């Protein structure tokens, strides 16, 4: 799936949260967005999914060259976009299994057979080193932060999206779990050729996912794009140096 974000400007109430935001993600590529807190990284993920909290006032989001701005959140999901949440909700009284079955069936004309569904789910639970009994437990209820992240990846593998947005996948995961989750994401990418947008603060996840591009976001837009070496630069210098250089560029532009 190709994703193109063109000159996007987004507001929440009267506050501008993204402005002049551009990003091109091609099929089978991994892009990473890094930046300090509160610059609109997670906002971008919710805007792509069509959250009604945000208003797109300018620009466009294209999927395979077609605008998705008029699609509802569920239509975008059924198109093949998957958002892994930073803090997934828990739903008491509804099991992971029945939720996923409902989510699969809303993508199909005929309901999935029980045998195929359970077989698929058991494989995915096993891949994430999760006891299969967890599929009978309420969605995310009493799950630790790490278990919630693993459960998101189980959902992803079961729903088979073409574009993954991974919002701080690394938070809450210990080093072994992070490695396991990343292996699963990469394996899925290899099979499906999906495109990935990863949002993170830290570079430790990048050594497992090996991104094609890294974008630094400050001041509501992308200020610098580079390869993995950019992440190392951030580790050494922090974000402040990029913030001040972006500010300088902006001032020069106004002056011209």
């Amino acid at each position: 799936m190709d994703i193109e974000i063109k000159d996007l400007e987004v507001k929440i109430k009267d506050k501008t949260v993204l402005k002049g935001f551009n990003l091109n993600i091609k099929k089978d590529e991994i892009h990473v967005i890094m930046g300090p807190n509160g610059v609109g990284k997670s906002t971008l993920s919710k805007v792509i999914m069509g959250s009604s909290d945000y208003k797109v006032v300018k620009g466009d989001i294209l999927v395979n060259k077609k605008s998705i701005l008029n699609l509802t959140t569920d239509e975008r999901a059924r198109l093949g976009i998957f958002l892994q949440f930073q803090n997934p909700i828990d739903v008491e009284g509804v099991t992971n299994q029945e939720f996923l079955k409902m989510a699969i069936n809303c993508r199909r004309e005929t309901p999935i057979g029980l045998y195929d569904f359970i077989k698929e789910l058991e494989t995915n639970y096993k891949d994430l080193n999760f006891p299969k009994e967890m599929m009978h437990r309420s969605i995310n209820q009493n799950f630790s932060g790490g278990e919630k992240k693993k459960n998101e990846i189980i959902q992803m593998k079961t729903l088979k999206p073409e574009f993954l947005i991974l919002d701080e996948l690394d938070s809450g995961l210990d080093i072994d779990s992070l490695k396991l989750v990343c292996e699963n994401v990469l394996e899925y990418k290899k099979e499906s050729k999906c495109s990935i947008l990863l949002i993170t603060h830290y570079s430790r996840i990048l050594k497992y996912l090996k991104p094609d591009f890294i974008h630094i976001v400050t001041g509501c837009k992308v200020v610098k794009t580079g390869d993995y070496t950019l992440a190392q630069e951030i580790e050494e210098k922090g974000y402040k140096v990029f913030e001040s250089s972006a500010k300088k560029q902006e001032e020069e532009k106004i002056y011209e």
Partner: protein
Amino acid sequence: MNKINVEDIKDEEKEIIISEDTIIFIKNSNLKIKYDIKNEVNIFECIIESSLDRELQTENNLKLNIFSVNSSIKEKINMKKSYTNLNYAYSTINNKNNKYEIDINHLENNITSKITNHGVCLKNNLNFTINTIVPNESFRIKTSQDSKIILLNDGVATIKPSLLVANDDIEANHSAYVGEFKSDDIFYLKTRGLNQNDAEKLLVKSFLLGSMDISFKERNIILEILKKYWR
């Protein structure tokens, strides 16, 4: 397990003695009823399109799970023995004007009660009045009441939670919420491909069943009723 069926009985007074785990179905009835509970039991009850004025008394631990549709219930529970527990979960879905009033009387010492009331109001009015009563003579009572009503469409709802406590040596708390489902919860489910209807259906199911301590079979009974009367 004992099973009691009450259907199409209007303006009658009944007294039932319950001494084992029991499933009770009350449908299209208008009753004044008294439950005398003799042992430690679990009661699962479905009340459909009915009106009930009930008094329930027990000297034992009691677990009561009630599911109702379009019903009005006036209930008085008398806990009459020390060192007993009451686990009471009430879930209801309504599109008519319905009232639910409950008094929980702690008539002895060292009684623990946990009262959970969950309602979904589809339209018209749904009113909850929950009175936790601890008289002056009762000591060391632990009691909590948690009430929520979710509004879907054009419903109007009120909750009046009261802790009527006449003693110092008591641990009592209450919470009440009337409103819609959180938009973040709906958004999460939609990001998995569920449309508004399916997302609401899942959250209603979760909200009504989540607070109840029931078996798989009892859960399926509720789901069948929900399918028939709602979606």
